[in-house]
């Protein structure tokens, strides 16, 4: 009769190792990717979301031209694609400043500076238009100028917020992220620490037949990776994230792009973990299973 006690200890440790490895993976992705603003800028670049957002902005100004009589070029000549791209990046940076506790809100702190060219362009248009129709600059003139600039700048900042960070901040999600950031290092260290500790427990439990360690490690890592790989493949092939009913194309591509990016990232990480698991299981079978659980 083989030692049931050792078998159960190893099985229990393997289950705990499953969750520890799961947490370690999550902590790794969170610390190295999710809480880094460059990740989100990279996702936008990957999905062409910068161009889509700029096209959306141009479309909004063009559709408004009919109603206001102000040519779209007044806005688009000032807010070029490069200026707009830098506004999108600034918005992301501002949001992460807030998440990291360096700013009170997610609002883009450099938007006023970046929109100075827009204000100058609108003022120039109004000035030339007033001169062409011999319009005396009165209070109504300046009120109209201010309201046009306010509307245009709001349109630009709203469109630049491709991840809808202002809305999610109002819903309280940024506060939650801030709390997570505070503990991200600890979570990372604890998750990897526990994983290492449990691997050590497995080594000690199988000290008389070290191939047993490979067997149990393979089960844990194989379970984590199989679950994540299967889940990622199902999400990708069923185009699950395409179902989001977000009508603004640039926001849709940013959000679904981020979802698919993380799906691909988890797929790659877990494919590597699965490879380690398979190799471990091969080592166990080659080294001989005779020594497993027998003391």
């Amino acid at each position: 009769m083989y030692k049931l006690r050792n078998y159960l200890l190893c099985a229990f440790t393997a289950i705990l190792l499953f969750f520890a490895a799961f947490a370690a993976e999550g902590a790794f992705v969170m610390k190295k990717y999710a809480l880094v603003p460059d990740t989100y800028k990279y996702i936008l670049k990957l999905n062409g979301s910068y161009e889509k957002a700029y096209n959306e902005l141009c479309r909004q100004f063009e559709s408004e031209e009919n109603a206001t009589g102000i040519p779209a070029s007044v806005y688009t000549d000032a807010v070029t694609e490069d200026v707009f791209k830098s506004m999108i990046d600034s918005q992301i940076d501002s949001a992460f400043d807030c998440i990291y506790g360096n700013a009170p809100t997610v609002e883009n702190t450099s938007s006023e500076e970046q929109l100075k060219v827009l204000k100058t362009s609108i003022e120039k248009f109004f000035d030339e238009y007033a001169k062409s129709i011999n319009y005396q600059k009165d209070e109504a003139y300046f009120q109209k100028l201010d309201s046009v600039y306010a509307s245009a700048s709001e349109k630009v900042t709203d469109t630049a917020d491709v991840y809808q960070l202002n809305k999610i901040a109002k819903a309280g999600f940024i506060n939650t992220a801030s709390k997570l950031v505070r503990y991200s290092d600890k979570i990372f260290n604890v998750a990897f620490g526990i994983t290492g500790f449990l691997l050590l427990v497995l080594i000690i439990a199988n000290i008389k037949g070290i191939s047993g360690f490979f067997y149990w490690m393979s089960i844990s890592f194989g379970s984590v990776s199989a679950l994540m790989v299967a889940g990622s493949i199902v999400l990708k092939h069923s185009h699950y994230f395409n179902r989001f009913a977000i009508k603004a194309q640039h926001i849709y591509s940013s959000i679904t792009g981020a979802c698919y990016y993380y799906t691909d990232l988890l797929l790659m990480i877990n494919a590597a973990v699965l490879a380690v698991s398979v190799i471990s299981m091969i080592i166990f079978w080659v080294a001989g299973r005779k020594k497993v659980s027998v003391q």
Partner: protein
Amino acid sequence: MAETKQKNEKHTPLPVVIITPFLIFAICAAITVVLGITPYNKFQTYIHVSFSDSMKNTTSAADSITVSENINTFESKSGVKTSSEGKVVIPSFGQQYAMLSCEAINLYVPVYWGSSEELLKNGACQLTASAVIGDKGNSVIDAHVNTFFADLNKLKEGDEVKINTSYGEFTYKVKNTATFEKTDKKYISQDKTDKLTLYTCVKQVLGSSTQRYAVICEPVDTKFYS
């Protein structure tokens, strides 16, 4: 001694070795799915909260429109007998008595009888001095250029305009357009021709425009409900 040791050494049963990974996987997967329900719900809430406004198809022009909750869309009545002649129903001042639609410019707007600033915020307004839709004469409807009639100048000859009322459905085709001074009443006054005139201000950046833009439409199909 060696024999005793050998006796004690036993193989782990092969079925146990094979089944154990699947059993542990099943246990871990079940726990993960149960624990994953809350984060999944939070993710769905994030999507809903963040993008529920984006799901509403609004345009910048529509931002300034007050949408009345009690609009009657006067949907086309299928299966009802219609005829080309019938009786119109004279509405009261301020009553929303028709729906005007035009696929060419994606226009769908309620029409009120009478004109005032308040009514112009809610939709298009018909001049009470003009012919009721379906009646003989010139039916004149106007709306603001920065709201409902923003795209009126995109209408071309041959585009179809439909008006639905409680007493019938009326289809018009754009015949021509005109630009005139606001003091010129030629296009909005009554004459013997049955037509529909849609008009609005010519857009002006500063001050108020003295010019008006009109789209004149001729009737092509008249269906009074029996």
